[in-house]
Structure formats: C-alpha cells, structure tokens
C-alpha cells in the first residue's frame, strides 16, 4: 500500500451533514411512488389478466351448469319416453289379462258365434 492509497483513505472522513441526512430522508420516504407508463401498462395487463381469469372461471362454471341442464333434459325425456312405453305395455298386458279373466258381453258373444260357426261348417 503506497502513500497515495493511504492518503485516499482520509477521504473516508467525508460524511453528509446530519441536517441534510434527516431532511433528505424525510423527503424521500414521504414521496409517493411514481408510476411510469411501463409500470402502468403492466399494472393494467395484470388487472385485465386477473379479471379475465375470474371471467373465464365464471364462464366455465356456467358452461358446466349448462351441460348438466341439457344432459338432464334429454336424459329425462328419454327416461320419460321409456316409462311411457313401459307403462303402455303394462296397461296393454293388464287389459288383456283382465279381458281373459272377465270377458265382456261382446267378446263372449264373439266367441260363441265363432264356436257355432265352427260346428255348423
């Protein structure tokens, strides 16, 4: 370490005034953060992105709900149709069973007429 570098170290005694340090500290820290146009743009994009995420999530929920509704509607219609056909079949079977057990006047007449015609011819 030569003479010059030793002397340079003397400059370490240079320090700011206390009054300046305090004043500057106060002014700097009380200053509001200024937004540059770039920061504003990023802020806007962040906002839009966040908003669009919320919108996308909402849309997805609505879509899922709509799928359930449509599926339920068609499935319900199918079930109802099947029920109706089944019901019809049941009613028909019941009708024929009842008719076989308690034949009506006309069916009895029809049968007797059939039997008579069979014996005659």
């Amino acid at each position: 370490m030569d003479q010059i570098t030793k002397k340079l170290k003397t400059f370490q005694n240079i320090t700011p005034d206390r009054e300046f340090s305090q004043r500057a500290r106060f002014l700097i820290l009380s200053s509001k953060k200024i937004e540059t146009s770039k920061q504003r743009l990023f802020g806007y994009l962040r906002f839009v992105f966040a908003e669009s995420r919320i919108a996308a999530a909402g849309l997805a929920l609505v879509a899922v709900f709509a799928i359930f509704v449509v599926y339920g509607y068609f499935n319900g219609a199918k079930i109802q149709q099947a029920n109706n056909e089944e019901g019809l079949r049941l009613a028909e079977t019941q009708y024929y069973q009842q008719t076989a057990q308690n034949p009506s006047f006309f069916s009895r007449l029809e049968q007797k007429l059939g039997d008579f015609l069979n014996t005659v011819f």
Partner: protein
Amino acid sequence: MIEDKELIKKAKQGSAESFGLLYDKHLNQIYRFVYLKVSNKQITEDLTQQVFLSAWQNIDSYQHQGFPFTSWLYRIARNAVIDHYRTSRSHIGLEAISEVADYSDLAGELEAKLELGKIKIALVSLPSDYQDVIVMRFIEELSHQEIAAALNKSEGAVRVLQHRALNSLKKILNNGSNN
C-alpha cells in the same frame, strides 16, 4: 442487524421504514462517491437525494443477482453524476481544496490539508471510469466483484482499470509537485 436482502424485500412491498434503514446504511458511501466526483457540497446533496429518491421509486426493478444493493446504488449515482455533467459543466478549483480542508480536520496540519486538496483535484481531473474505480476500491474498499457489478464490467477489466487509474493519478500528482 437486518440483512439488505430482507430490507429490500420489505421495501419492495412498500415498507418506507425498511427503505429508510437502507438509506441510513448506504448514505455515507453514496454521498462520498458523489462528492468526490462533483466537488460541490450543494450539488452533492442534491444528487445524493436524487439517487435515493430514484432508488426508492425503482426498488421493484432491483433484482439480487449475486451482487449487493450497494452496486446498484453506485450505478444510479454514476448515472446521476453523468447526467449532471451533461447538463452543466462544473468547474473545479480552489473550492475543492477548501471543502476537503473542512472535512479533513483529522489530518491536522495545513500541509496535509493542501496535500489532500491536491489529490482531490487530481482525482477529479481523471476520466470518469478511473475516478469510479479509485473511489470504490481505495476509499470505499469494495471488492473487485462489487465494482465490476457497479460499473457493468468484468472483474478483469476492473483490475486493469484500477492499475491504469492509479498510474494516472500518480502521474498527475508527480507532475503537479514538479511544477
């Protein structure tokens, strides 16, 4: 003592108190750096305030990439000084000697004060890069790595710059003493 990293994290979240602690910690270094480059107390105060204000406004853009916060502050200070010289060309004269004398009470004797004044004038007359390296290395005692980060140069380039800067300073001082 809280680490710079922790304080920066909090300052980024908007904590003025944390930035205040960073200010307290680094003010002297930055003030000295600016003062030794502009040689005027009033301008030094203005520029130092500007440096910290700019650091506070742009703390979000600071990213710890292996070099300390001080290097980032030096970089801002350097740009502030360059801008200052671009807009107004300051003159260095007897004012530099008298102001150094004010700060060098410890040196005692008048001869020593004048010697320091000479060194200061020689320092200010060096190219900007040389001044930066001498101040950072021999006054602020930063490592080559820290200086390299502040000057945006490689460590090798800083070593070369330091060698040349010291030689230039010695040359100017020797010429001054011969005249």
